[in-house]
């Protein structure tokens, strides 16, 4: 139940909405229980129903298909396809941190900070990241679930990861990992 609610919360970003879609998903699952052939698949099936419940609710609210390829402006997927890598940033010269920077980054990263960064992602990116990286659906399954082409799943994943890592990097910079470039040295106290 905690994972179901937690997933709903990350998808909706709102406790009341999360409770509603969990309850709705459980209700749907129970009423369609006879359609489930393999009882061992119950959990996966329930999560699938949860995702679909979220997606249809999302669509209803937007009163237009939120995840279709032509929904949002092209800026969403195609433009600004830069790949931002946190790992690369943590390995650049002139960091104030030394030693195993990625280890230190992970140790100092708070779950609250990660949650803020994830929740701040625009819906299309956040949802694809959760469905693929957390729930483990394949690109093809995700594409089918959201009604978008596999290529769009891929581009949203790339963009979502870049945005997430960029925002984590920003947080780390603010917290003092800040790059101390040689030219700036004189400026620091």
């Amino acid at each position, binding site marked *: *139940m*905690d*994972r*179901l*609610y*937690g*997933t709903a*919360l*990350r998808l909706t970003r709102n*406790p009341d909405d999360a*409770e509603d879609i*969990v*309850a709705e998903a*459980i*209700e749907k699952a*129970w*009423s369609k229980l006879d359609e489930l052939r393999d009882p061992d698949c119950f959990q996966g099936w329930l999560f699938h129903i949860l995702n679909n419940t979220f997606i249809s609710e999302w669509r209803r609210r937007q009163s237009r298909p939120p995840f279709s390829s032509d929904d949002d402006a092209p800026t969403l997927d195609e433009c600004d396809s830069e790949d931002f890598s*946190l*790992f690369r940033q*943590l390995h650049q010269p002139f960091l104030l941190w030394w030693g195993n920077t*990625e280890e230190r980054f*992970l140790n100092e*990263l708070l*779950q609250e900070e*990660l*949650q803020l960064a*994830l929740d701040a992602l625009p819906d299309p990116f956040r949802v694809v*990241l*959760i469905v*693929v*990286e*957390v729930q483990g659906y*394949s*690109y093809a399954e995700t594409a089918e679930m959201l009604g978008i082409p596999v290529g769009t799943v891929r581009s949203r*994943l*790339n963009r979502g*990861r870049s945005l997430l890592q960029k925002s984590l990097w920003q947080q780390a910079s603010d917290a003092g990992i800040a790059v101390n470039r040689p030219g700036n040295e004189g400026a620091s106290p």
Partner: protein
Amino acid sequence: MTRRTLTCEEVIEQLFDYLDQELDDQRQADIEQHLAKCRDCFSRAEFERRLRDRMEALTQVPAPHRLHRRIRSLLDQFDDESNSTT
């Protein structure tokens, strides 16, 4: 048959496909083999994996009591319905 070994650049390029298990078995195995030997690529893969684990932990949130009660009454309702039909 000898296979050409992958370069670090090729491995990093396909790293997320590898982590998402989107590659065919042979390519998955090739990358695994590279990661076993290459410390740089391994660290990168490990970093992305651990970040992912941390994200997964965000979907484990104690469900509020109110939701537990709501689900219980929902399921009781189903029980009542199935009892009344038998």
